[in-house]
């Protein structure tokens, strides 16, 4: 049997098997420790060049990738450009070919169009990591959410996880749905119908239109950021009302039959989708998600670069011992 691998690219969780997802999570475990050291660096990706190509504003995802790359000793270049490349006169395929011509090893890309990462991956030899494509997938976020949930429960299999908020426009929601379903969780979504994708039940998820029902049902809530422009686009009447109807508050959580684990991919709108007391409360693992994000991204970079899963432990150890 061939050992599991991720293949050339990481484009989304929909196309990954449960085995591949577990591979990333398991490989992330040893990398967690690297970030806890005084000298947070291993030589694993020394000599590799990685381009972080961001066509959309991003702070935490880009920084998380950069830390992951630097801690693995890769050489990185950041290219940020809001608005699509087409608006700037150069098509994505030209951008990709130019980068390829500079002999890079990997591209981490965020792009406002769904499918853009796949488009790129099919046209260049370098590994492509999707850091968010339109409203499609954000696989590294999905994986770090899975890792964080796994850290807090014995198993993901059988857990009830509800994703709350703007599912329609959320790539985080789609990656979470695929990842959770593949690992055996029961998945629900909750939000106003105007922010739920048509036919979402067809993916095998349950739908709640009332946050109280979602809280009563769930073991885990993953509360999405409500993009403030959704209000001006007419999807919801006001943020004030959203908080009142869909906000995850202490009062609502206290009415639940059990304690819920609270995730949020950030950045949070405190007092809109989540009450500050919940975000800062004892069951919130929002900062653990951020910490895990670096480890998961290190694992993905390592695996795509051809690293042996079994050697991840050794890869970090060799450095500590001063050898290569």
């Amino acid at each position, binding site marked *: 049997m061939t050992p599991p691998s991720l293949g050339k690219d990481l484009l989304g969780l*929909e196309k990954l098997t449960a085995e591949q997802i577990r591979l990333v999570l398991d490989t992330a475990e040893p990398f967690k420790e690297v970030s806890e050291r005084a000298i947070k660096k291993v030589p694993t990706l020394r000599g590799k060049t990685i381009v972080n190509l961001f066509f959309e504003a991003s702070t935490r995802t880009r920084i998380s990738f950069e830390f992951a790359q630097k801690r693995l000793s890769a050489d990185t270049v950041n290219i940020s450009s809001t608005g*699509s490349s*087409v608006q700037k006169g150069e*098509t*994505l*395929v030209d951008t990709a070919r130019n980068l390829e011509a500079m002999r890079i090893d990997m591209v981490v890309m965020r*792009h*406002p*169009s*769904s*499918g*853009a990462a*796949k*488009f790129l991956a099919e046209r260049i030899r370098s590994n492509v990591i999707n850091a968010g*494509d*339109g*409203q*499609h*997938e954000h696989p590294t976020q999905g994986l770090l959410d899975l890792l964080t949930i796994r850290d807090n429960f014995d198993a993901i299999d059988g857990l009830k996880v509800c994703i709350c908020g703007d599912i329609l426009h959320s*790539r985080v929601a*789609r990656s979470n749905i695929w990842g959770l379903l593949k690992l055996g969780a029961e998945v629900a979504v909750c939000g106003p119908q105007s922010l739920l*994708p*048509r*036919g*979402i039940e*067809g*993916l095998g998820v349950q739908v709640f239109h009332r946050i109280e029902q979602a809280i009563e049902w769930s073991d885990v809530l993953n509360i999405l950021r409500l993009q403030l422009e959704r209000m001006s686009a007419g999807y919801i009447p006001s943020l004030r009302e959203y908080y009142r109807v869909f906000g995850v508050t202490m009062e609502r959580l206290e009415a639940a039959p059990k304690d819920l684990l609270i995730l949020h991919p950030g950045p949070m709108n405190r007092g809109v989708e989540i009450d500050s007391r919940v975000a800062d409360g004892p069951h919130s693992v929002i900062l653990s998600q951020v910490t895990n994000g670096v480890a998961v991204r290190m694992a993905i970079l390592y695996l795509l670069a051809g690293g042996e899963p079994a050697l991840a432990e050794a890869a970090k150890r060799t450095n500590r011992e001063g050898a290569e």
Partner: protein
Amino acid sequence: MKPLLLKGGHIVDPSQGYDAVGDLLMAEGRIEALSKGLSAPDGADVLDVTGKVVAPGLVDIHVHLREPGREDAETVATGAHAAAAGGFTSICAMPNTDPVTDNQAAVGFIVKQGEAAEAARVYPIGAISIGQRGEHLAEFGELIHAGAVGVSDDGHPVVSSHLMRTALEYSLTFGIPVADHCEDPTLFEGGAMHEGLVSSRLGLKGIPAAAEEIMVARNIMLAELTGGHAHLLHMSTRGSVELIRRAKDRGINVTAEATPHHFTLTDDACEDYDTNAKMNPPLREQDDVAAVREGLKDGTLDAIATDHAPHHYETKERDFDDAPFGIVGLETALGLGLVELVEGGVLTLPELITRMSTAPARVYDLPAGSLARGAQADVVVFDAAARWTVDPQRFRSKSHNTPFAGRELAGKVEYTIVGGRLVF
């Protein structure tokens, strides 16, 4: 011009209910005779077409020829030759050119380029509104005088119900259809594909079926109000087909068309973000495909029209959101009709010829779609049984944007004859 005799073909002419082996004689650009055992007059060319289908030349009432404006994607001449290669002898060119075909000079230009092409006949459709901006009516009288056969703002919906009403009323003077691209812009906004499970999975903004159906319903009401002839372009949903069926039952002056891709493909074709599956209206669901087929069978949908939309390859070589809508269709329409509809048991061969020739000619009152004595000698000869595989590189069209590359189709076009002269 020498007379031309086609001998021994399987002649299918729905306009006369002819469906039998026979001979067809053309002279002076007209049909001279159609019967068994015709002998060739002196000096006539004779083609033995035994085993082949001989039918009125196909008529495509919805093509985009991109000239003037995007001659890198298509010209009137390359489009007319692509049409001839696909068995079409008459095509109607939509006015969303650059500049827009909204005045008599622009119409005259298309006519002149069409004549120079010496391939399929090219009939311009003029714009409903100046610049297709949906504000002021174009000069229908001058458009028609210059050679336009109808009006449409295709590419854009007529958003204003008042403008659509006025266009339908004004069209009564000229006896032309007003053809609308039925789309509610507020429901459509930003959409890239059909709204359904596939769009939800791919994270692409969906276009609900209601975006089309709302405007279909409106246009039917306005046709009833005015008595004008509303022609509904590229119908794609079950709801639309049912609305039109009811309207026709009530005698409302409405006609409609559907494309080969809407009777063949579903939104599953968008699965891998294939930009050649991005069209407007979008590919819908299996039930919609079934409804379109039923509509073509019972005549709710009068015509098969390709919505031939050439795009230069690099404009489709983009991420899905940024790629333009549309595919080429002239060189695959007959093959899809034969495989999907005739071999698929939906239509008989004469019914397919009705939907691809006789009926579309009637929508715009074109002198086409018949092999009756005295008709223009526009004829297609094809081998209905021959199989071929779609290779876009071999298209006569300048553009190759098709989702059907590599698909096996039936129906090899042997000859396309326009005015008694071989053009393919």
